[in-house]
């Protein structure tokens, strides 16, 4: 394996300074960077910036009406977090579908976000929950809504000297979030389709508001199905709603054939799972 030079700053400000001086590939838990390096996938980076010692980027905290995740929060920490289990169980569910214990102990939320895989398992949930990604650099911090963070195939809104420092997920009263990953097997699986659906509704008889539908593995980047969201807005989870929504979403996405699945399957399954989620919400 090519072993590019790596620096391990102890403070965030030191990391910012290094990033301002030269092009570094940041590495957190290593579960993506080392796969690419040892597999010879793509050109190796010239130098690496190890974020692992930056304790400023750790921790899960409740901050008023939002949950704050440090970028170095691992999937295992999300799974163990009582506050997360209470307030955002779908996030815990999503973290549990990633890899297996070895990956969950090392892989980080910030890494998942910055790696920008169209199949990133956590990303549709971030889209469905209006998460805000806070990026930092020597120039300071800025907030980027998840909906505008992933700009193309493995492209993000981060500038070259920026890293993800934390993620803020607003907590909304009466919001329901559902997560479903269709993978290639039951563990250690990359997704064929990831669906995260959220809506606000105080009672079963109340129409859905603020509907968000985040999807993974159905486009070159994680997306929100905005046309289907618009259709669902203000509706009740009835059979008619489910039928039309499943047709809408299948028409809205443009998945591809690849080594893991087919476009036809992804389209069909996205529709059918959305139908199922609406049906379960409507309890019919």
């Amino acid at each position, binding site marked *: 394996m090519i072993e590019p030079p790596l620096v391990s700053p102890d403070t965030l400000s030191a990391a910012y300074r290094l990033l301002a001086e030269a092009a570094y590939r940041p590495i957190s838990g290593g579960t993506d960077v080392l*796969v690419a390096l040892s597999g010879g996938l793509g050109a190796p980076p010239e130098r690496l910036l190890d974020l692992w010692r930056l304790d400023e980027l750790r921790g899960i905290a409740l901050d008023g009406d939002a949950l704050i995740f440090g970028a170095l929060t691992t999937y295992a920490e999300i799974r163990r977090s009582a506050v997360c289990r209470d307030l955002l169980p779908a996030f815990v569910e999503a973290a549990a579908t990633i890899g297996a214990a070895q990956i969950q102990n090392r892989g980080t939320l910030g890494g998942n976000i910055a790696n920008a895989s169209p199949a990133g398992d956590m990303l549709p949930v971030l889209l469905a929950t209006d998460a805000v990604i806070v990026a930092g650099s020597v120039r300071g911090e800025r907030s980027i809504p998840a909906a505008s963070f992933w700009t193309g195939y493995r492209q993000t809104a981060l500038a070259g000297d920026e890293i993800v420092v934390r993620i803020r997920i607003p907590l909304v009263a009466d919001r329901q979030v559902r997560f479903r990953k269709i993978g*290639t*097997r039951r563990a250690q699986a990359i997704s064929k389709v990831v669906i995260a659906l959220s809506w606000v509704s105080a009672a079963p008889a109340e129409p859905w508001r603020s509907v968000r539908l985040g999807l993974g593995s159905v486009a070159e980047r994680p997306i929100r199905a905005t046309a289907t969201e618009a259709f669902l807005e203000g509706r009740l989870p009835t059979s008619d709603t489910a039928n039309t929504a499943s047709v809408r979403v299948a028409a809205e996405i443009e998945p591809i054939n690849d080594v*893991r699945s087919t476009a*036809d*399957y992804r389209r069909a*399954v996205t529709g059918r799972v959305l139908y199922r989620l609406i049906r379960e919400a409507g309890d019919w």
Partner: protein
Amino acid sequence: MTIRPPLGRIAAPVTLRPHLPSSGLVTPSAPFRREGPAKLTGTALYTDDLVFPGAWYGQTIRSTEARARLLGVELDPGFDWTRVVVVTAADIPGANIVNSIQDDQPILAVDEIRHHAEPVALVAAPDRALLREAVAHVALRTSPLQPVFDPLASSQVFAHYDIQTGDVEAALAGAALVVEGEYRVGHQEQLYIENNAMIAVPRDDGGVAVHGSLQCPYYVHKALRRSLLLSDAQAQVIQAETGGGFGGKEEYPSILALHAALLARACARPVRMIYDRHEDIAATTKRHPAIVTYRSGVSADGRLVAQEIEIVMDAGAYCTLSPVVLSRGTLHAGGPYACPNVRIRSRAVATNTPPNGAFRGFGAPQTEFAAEMQVNRIAEALAVSPLELRRRWLYRPGDTTPTGQVLRESVAAEEALERAAEASEFERVRARTAAARTSRVSRGDAADGHLAHGIGLALAWHGAGFTGSGEVHLESVASVELTGDGRIVILVGSTEMGQGTKTIFPQLVAEALGVPMDDVEFAPQDTSIVPDSGPTVASRTAMVVGGLVIGACRRLRAVVEERSGAPFADSYRADAQAHGPTRIDEHFEPYPGVDFDDTTYRGDAYPAFGWASAIAEVDVDLDTGEVAVRSVVAADDVGRVIHPVLAEGQVEGGTLQAVGYATIEEIKLRDGRYLNDRLATYLIPTALDAPRIETILVEAPFSGAPHGAKGIGELPMDVGAPAVVAAIHDATGVWIHDLPASPERILAAMASRDAESQG
């Protein structure tokens, strides 16, 4: 398809007689795995764990095209080539041929590249960084040629067979029901967790010693002698601890050993060639894809009267072992069912894809999947239970196979079937799943939730040992030596790769000689020490080589007891002191009454058959087509159980490989290149995907082997996939004709079924 009314009444339940133990057979027991403590403490040495000071690292330069004219191997003049060695075909002293059945596969390609990832040149360097740099400065100059990827369009046939008995056309014409089917199965990767690995070390006598992960030391030995022009002694092959084989380390290690040896010769130093997973998947052999078509005829009174079968196997670019794989596939294609009129035509053809080779089951899983699909579909057409239909049709003692072999003994199809059916409560579960299916249909699809449960059944036979006269040609030898210092040593070329050779052979010897097992040693698998006992393949080790070992022990015991006049156990140490070493070499003798004609394919295709049944239960998610295999009951006839824990381990592992084959293991190709060439994309089941497996060991001993044992390793591989696919059908109502039965295929089949029923 013509359908007659359902068949008559269900036969009375079969009463089973347990096989009584007979004297002289081995007593089953479960001593600890011999090399278990070493494996459990990390001290067992696999190839990559071996240290050879000063060793260089070797790498293979491979083609990136499926078919091309090779115009040259170009070394960048800007690179300092004095620091490394490069080997091309011109540097091979002997034949540029990987020794196998046909002389068609070059060690390094010369004029024509015939598949993606074909070896063209070799580079070795003192360290990995320099090696990487050197490899980046090698280029292949090629001009493209038109490749062939479709086996049905291939005109190059490596092997073909035609088995006929009775008059199939007439029988089909007279049949009350004819069911036709075409079944396609894809590549399957062995996926041993230890990649192929080999280290070549120059010997002082001008020869080479190779240490590697391998199943068949003497295959490698022969390949080295031939292409490096070495004497028997100059070519030395030593098996390191081997992290799984499953057929994938049967023939492939020959080419890898040749590569390592050529580099070691070039740099006059040890050379390590340890594949990474990507190279291992991209370049090494897989299970042959196959297209199998059937026309099966059933008489008005419900007998199977005709089977017309055509098999096309995709061999890939070179012949490798394809004729033998095809032969086994052909001989098993009828399934374990008596049928008077059978015609089986088969061919293995060339395509411009990496060569396929041995994998547990060796051709039989492909054709028996198709055979069992046929039986299950016929049962559906007749509206009779698939269990009941098999009860009527399965082979019983005295039945004749399509090659004219009369099954005189050791026939346990019925016992395997009945015991699996009983343990799984097949009919009870099937009634429940049928009721659930009916209510689903009546209330609208998926109305009772999105998970549908199903149960499915399969039955198979598997010829034990080599096909036809193969064992006779092998001339295997196994030896047992009482050394001059009073130790008892087993000398066999049979390898341990996890299946238990190192444990069961000492067990057999201890029993035959009446000594404690701990007093029996197992010589290392080093061609300078042990004889050629034939390859460790074809589930032949326990039956054939084990039989030879027992034969050697009986002779040794007789010699010592005659000299001492006392029981062996009490006298062998003194005997060794008095008479020096006594070594018995036991040579294979044809099993009496077993006769096969290789040219006409008539006669006894195998000395005996093993019998297997599997019953699988699945949950299918009707929204997504995802399949969870919940349980498999596996009943496997091994002849005689030597070590129940190891035997169960074989059944459990083989069953899960079959479940993977049925559900998720898939290789897609683009321009002759495997797309699933990493462990992130070629998926095997994890512990969460694995079913609960219940193993039932059936014993129908084979009289030709002194201990009655037959093979075990391959049996479960034949039945798992058809059982799972039958269970998917039971859950969903759709038949998936192609493996794997992926969610994509299941959803597509349900969609077209629904479209038809609405149209």
